[in-house]
């Protein structure tokens, strides 16, 4: 099968890869580029564990082909922190213990970052609605929502300084 040459920007770096047409962006990220933070849960767009940001909009990387990433800018969970400094969303997930098994966490982190980039001051309802495409089967959503809202206030504080 013919392989396609794809040029993208991933987590701020220009990245080129070869892929077959049927490989999803998630397959390419995990298997070709060794960015295994994004997880495969349902492969049908229900669980959000594979959430990445493409050209500023969060999407399920399991429902997008690798070839469709041509010319796009992709941010994965690996690109959220700044060097050794965790993103406030990551830090607050730790502080609030907003994870147990951790499988859904990368998707939640990416989706929450996308939310706060768009809306720095969400209500609880807005946060829950925004994160409706991400499923957690162990921690429960309460701690996750608390962590996201706390991260939002932390980021607003930082922005005000």
């Amino acid at each position, binding site marked *: *099968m*013919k392989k*396609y040459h794809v040029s993208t920007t991933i987590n701020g770096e220009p990245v080129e890869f070869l892929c*077959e*047409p*049927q490989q*999803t962006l998630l*397959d390419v990220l995990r298997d070709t580029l060794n960015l295994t933070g994004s997880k495969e849960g349902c*492969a*049908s*767009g*229900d669980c*959000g564990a594979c*959430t990445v940001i493409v050209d500023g*909009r*969060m*999407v*399920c990387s*399991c*429902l*997008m*082909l690798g*070839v*469709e990433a041509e010319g796009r800018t992709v941010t994965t969970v690996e690109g959220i922190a700044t060097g050794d400094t965790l993103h406030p969303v990551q830090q607050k997930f730790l502080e609030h213990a907003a994870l147990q098994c951790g499988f859904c966490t990368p998707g939640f982190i990416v*989706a929450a970052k*996308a939310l706060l980039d768009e809306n720095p001051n969400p209500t609880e309802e807005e946060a829950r*609605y*925004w994160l*409706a*495409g991400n499923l957690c089967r162990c921690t429960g959503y309460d701690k996750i929502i608390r962590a996201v809202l706390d991260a939002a206030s932390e980021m607003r504080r930082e922005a005000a300084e």
Partner: protein
Amino acid sequence: MKPRKFAYIRPDTVDEAVAVLGEYGDDARILAGGQSLMAMLNLRLVEAAALIDIARIPELDTIRVAGDKVEIGAAVVQNRLLAWPDLKSRLPLLGALLPFVGHFQTRNRGTVCGSIAHADPSSEIPLSLAMLGGEVVLRSLRGTRVLAASDFQRGVLTTAREPDELVAAVRFPVAPSRHRVAFREVARRHGDFAIIAVAAMVEDAGAVRLGVGGMTGAPAIRRIEMNGGTAARDAIETLAWDLEGFEDIHASARLRRDILRRIGPVVIEEACRCAA
């Protein structure tokens, strides 16, 4: 699960796309947002020899007001329409129901036309096209044809589209400003496929147009006369038996009828209250 192998073709124009589609016919699938197609490929519910990616064709990525209709091209994603500044004034029904379509993730890639082409019986967007009496624009090497929504969706995941035809656009009639709308759906979780979706639009003082998704293979649209008393409730009772409903993993036919009986009158009342 991983999809079987297929070829990937990315035409630059609609003419090229329909030429390729004419060549492959049934063996090809159109890829726009892929939010239903990719899931079905991943789960191997469908197979394709080739995917024809139309997402980057500029002439398909347009929202255009043409006379008393809004034409939405095949590459327009749901969140783009949701963010369209004129949505609430020109297409209030879509303004009410688009937030219920999938999740942020899927609305960022899923297209308006793709949802209509997919023709899921409980989908919100085909329901809105049927409610508003919209049209589907089909293009092929043989030319262009325009079908009414009611002629397009034939049943569960079944449409009047021929294998060589591309759903190039859909046209929603602009609602007269006196029309007021309401929408509700019942799903296990927000963003899941609706078990029952109900839309109501006040047409004039004496009647409401009611649209029901999830009861039958295609959206059911009825005009309900409002002559006071229990007229609306009685009409919905009749409608529930008339449509029957179907049984699947999510709900029995009886539960579907029951949900319709419960939310139907509420949605009608909301639309009427909105109009007053």
